[in-house]
C-alpha cells in the first residue's frame, strides 16, 4: 500500500489523531506555563530556592519518557486514563525550559532599570508586571517554544500507553513494518513541530525589547 492511498483512505482517522495530539500538547504546555512561569518568578525572589527547583526540574528531564509514564501509572485519578497520564508527563518535561527561561529572562533585566524602578517607588508587583515581565517576555517565549517543540515530539510516545495521538500510527506502522503508516503519523507530527517553532520564533522576535540602555 503506498503512502498517498493510505492517507486518502484514512484521512479522517489521521485528522482525529492529529487533533488529539494537538490537544494533549497544547493542554500540557499550558499547564506547564501555569506552573513553570510562577515558579521561575518565585526563584528570582527567593534565590535560595533557585538551585533546588532547577535541580528538581533537571532530574525530571533525565527520566526516560517511557519510564516516567510507567512511574505515574499508579497515581490515583491520573492513572485512570492514559490521556491524563500523558498530559501530566508532558507537563513535567516542559517545566525545565519554562522555569529556567523565566529566571534567566528576569534576572537578565538591566540592573539600573530595576534600581531606578524601585527608587521611583514601584511596588514589587508593579516592578514585575510593568518592567520585569515585559522585558523578559521574549526570553520566556523562547522557553515556551522549546517546551512546545519537545512536547510535540514526546507526545508520540504517549501512544505506547494508549493515550492516542499521532504516535498511534507510528507504533502501528512499526508493528506492521509498513513505512507508509509510520510516515502518516510522523509527517504531521514533524509539520506541527516546525509550524509551532516558526510561529513562536516570529513572535519572539517581535517581543524582543529594544536594545537596553
Amino acid at each position, binding site marked *: 500500500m503506498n503512502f498517498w492511498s493510505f492517507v486518502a483512505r484514512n484521512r479522517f482517522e489521521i485528522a482525529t489523531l492529529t487533533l488529539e495530539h494537538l490537544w494533549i500538547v497544547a493542554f500540557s504546555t499550558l499547564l506547564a506555563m501555569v506552573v513553570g512561569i510562577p515558579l521561575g518568578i518565585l526563584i528570582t525572589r527567593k534565590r535560595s530556592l533557585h538551585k533546588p527547583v532547577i535541580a528538581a526540574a533537571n532530574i525530571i528531564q533525565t527520566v526516560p519518557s517511557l519510564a516516567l509514564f510507567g512511574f505515574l501509572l499508579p497515581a490515583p485519578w491520573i492513572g485512570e486514563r492514559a490521556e491524563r497520564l500523558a498530559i501530566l508527563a508532558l507537563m513535567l518535561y516542559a517545566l525545565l525550559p519554562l522555569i529556567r527561561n523565566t529566571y534567566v529572562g528576569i534576572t537578565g533585566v538591566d540592573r539600573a532599570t*530595576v534600581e*531606578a524602578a524601585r*527608587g521611583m*517607588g*514601584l511596588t514589587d508587583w508593579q516592578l514585575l508586571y510593568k*518592567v520585569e515581565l515585559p522585558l523578559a517576555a521574549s526570553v520566556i517565549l523562547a522557553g515556551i517554544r522549546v517546551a512546545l517543540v519537545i512536547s510535540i515530539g514526546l507526545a508520540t510516545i504517549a501512544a505506547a500507553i494508549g493515550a492516542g495521538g499521532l504516535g498511534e500510527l507510528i507504533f502501528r506502522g512499526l508493528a506492521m513494518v509498513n513505512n507508509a503508516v509510520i510516515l502518516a503519523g510522523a509527517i504531521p507530527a514533524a509539520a506541527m513541530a516546525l509550524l509551532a517553532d516558526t510561529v513562536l520564533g516570529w513572535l519572539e522576535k517581535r517581543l524582543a525589547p*529594544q*536594545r537596553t*540602555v
Partner: protein
Amino acid sequence: MASSAPTVEFSNVSFVLPDGRPILQDLNFEVQPGEILVLLGRSGSGKTTALKLVNRLLELSSGQLRVEGRSTKDWNPIELRRHIGYAIQDVGLFPHYTVARNIALVPSIQDWPKQRIEARVQELMGLVELDLEIASRYPHQLSGGQRQRVGVARALAADPPILLMDEPFGALDPLTRADLQREFLSLQQQLRKTVLFVTHDLHEALRLGTRIALLEEGSLISLTSWDEFLSSSEPLVKQYVEAFGATDRQREKP
C-alpha cells in the same frame, strides 16, 4: 535657612554589610531645605550607600535617619520613594517605554488623570530643554545627554520636594556635562528642591554644591560651604583640592 528644620537628617547612621564589613560609620549631617548638599568622595567611600539609605533602597544598620522630621523607618518605603526624586548615572530608563511614558512613570502609578499627566510631561520636557518631538521616541534612540535629561525629568515628575542624585552627569562628555550642570543650577533656582548629590568630581561639587560633605572610608571628614572647602586645612581636603588642581577661580555661579 539656618533656622528652618532640616529636610534630611543623619544621626549616628551606620551601615554594615551582611558579611560584617562596615560601609558607613556614625554619619552625622543635615540637608537644609532648598540646598544642594554634595556628597564627595572616591569610589568605595560609601557615598552611594548613604544616598540609598535615604529612600530605603538599603536599610541602615544603626542610628537614625529622618526625612521631613520623620524617621525613615516610620515611612512606608513606597510612599517615601514617591516623595523623593531619584536620578542615577546609568539613568535606568525603561527601554520598552517611550520618553513620554518614562517621564510620566510616577504620576501614572499615582493615578493622575490622563490630561494632567500629558500637561505635566510637556511642562517637564520644556523644563529640562528637551524637544517635544522626541516624546514618542524610545530610550535607545536618544543621545546620552538626552537620556540624562529624561532621567532628571522623570525624577521631577511628581514634584517631589527632595531629590537624590547619584552622579547623574558622570557618564557624559565634558561639554554636555557642563551644559547639564548649568541647566540644573538654573532649574534649581526656580524649583528650590532639597538635593543630595553624589559625585567624585570636585569640579562638579564646587560648581553645584551649596555645601560639600567629604566622605572617606565611610566616615564624614569635613562638611563645609564650597569656598571654605577650598581653604580648608584638613589634610584630606587639601589632598583632594590639589589632586584636582582646583582654585577658587573655578567657581562660577550662574
